[in-house]
């Protein structure tokens, strides 16, 4: 494969920063439980669109940053995000041809996997979270997926991110 010219790194970083901000912005209590997992969505988009560039490594770094912003155990989100990035990069050709609703279902499953990994680590480390809270954010993430997908695709095309 010819080495493609890389550009638009700043746009990718910016999108991740916005996702991190959205994931800690203050919400009322009822909305906190259905907050979409923005970082997961943005990571899935980029590793689907540019798997040769954004993949497990980026997932790991973003996960570490998410751990620090959430002040979680260092590595719990990193492990889960790296795994999700691997899954997406592995399946990116299949995912790209899916229609939106079908993609949203896959995103739902990916978010559940992400939450399960995080829940598993939390369970080992002794905090007892509410198991139902892994379903609701996955569901809202799937609902918000078309929005993330369309806006990021428009940004990617207009700034020629390769």
């Amino acid at each position: 494969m010819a080495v493609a010219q890389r550009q638009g790194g700043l746009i990718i970083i910016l999108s991740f920063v916005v996702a991190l901000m959205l994931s800690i912005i203050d919400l009322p209590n009822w909305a906190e439980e259905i907050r979409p997992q923005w970082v997961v969505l943005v990571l899935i988009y980029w590793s689907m669109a540019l798997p040769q560039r954004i993949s497990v490594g980026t997932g790991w770094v973003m996960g570490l940053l998410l751990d620090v912003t959430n002040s979680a155990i260092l590595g719990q989100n990193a492990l889960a995000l790296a795994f999700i990035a691997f899954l997406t990069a592995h399946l990116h050709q299949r995912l790209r041809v899916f229609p939106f609703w079908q993609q949203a279902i896959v995103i739902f499953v990916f978010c559940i996997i992400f939450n399960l990994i995080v829940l598993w680590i939390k369970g080992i480390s002794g905090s007892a979270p509410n198991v139902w809270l892994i379903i609701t954010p996955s569901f809202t993430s799937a609902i918000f997926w078309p929005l993330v997908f369309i806006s990021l695709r428009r940004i990617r095309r207009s700034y020629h991110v390769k």
Partner: protein
Amino acid sequence: MVLDHRFHATDAIRSTLSIVVDPIRYVVNLPTDIKNWAAGSLVSHTTLEDENQTLKTQNQLLKAKLQKYASLKAENANLRGLLKSAKKYEDKLEQVLIAEILSVDLDPFRRKVVINKGSSHDVYIGQPIIGAQGVMGKIIHIGPLSSTALMITDANHSIPVQVNRNNVRAIAMGIPKNNQLELIHQPNNADIKVDDLLVTSGLGCIFPGGYPVGRVTDITTNLSLPFAKIIVQPTAQLDKNREVLLVWPDFGGNKQSDCRGPEEDS
């Protein structure tokens, strides 16, 4: 992850990464800041006058109470002198610093807050934070410009307390679900009643003694269980306070490092 959880070996990495994360936190907090600034600068003259009046009255009341406190303190010292009590009453002013809670949401499963003071303000890990009405929590992670505090109602937080009425000592563990605490390992016949005020005991060398923690709201005794279930409502308004006090406690001769604190983790 085990290194982080059990041994806190990755604190350096965490505080380095928080240099990247701190600006994000401050930017997220910006709308709240702007709102507060607007609310502060766009109030009418009469409102300000009213507020000033209320504050003056409050100040008078507090001063009056303080006079009483001074005389009580002298009396206490006298009585202790008469009894030749070993415990010296020391009037030590703890060093405090006002910090503000940043309006960022952390993990919804945990009870944690981010405050806008960090290692550049000499904040240290394990430092207690208190609100106007009582103890709120302690610092668990520090970055250069912000730090994370664990609230007393987190499931992994325990605080040594004693009943104000009769000095029965206990340990209060957090119940994050209802924002309450529970006194653990108290026998069914323990002398604790509903509406008892619990204050910090100062044991464990993390929290200074004598600060209010909560009030007992419910006691369930079941004779088939070894311990009573005692529920405590924290006095501090954990989810309403915006401003908290960071305290540098003084444990007499004991240094912080001389004694191990209660179990804590991230």
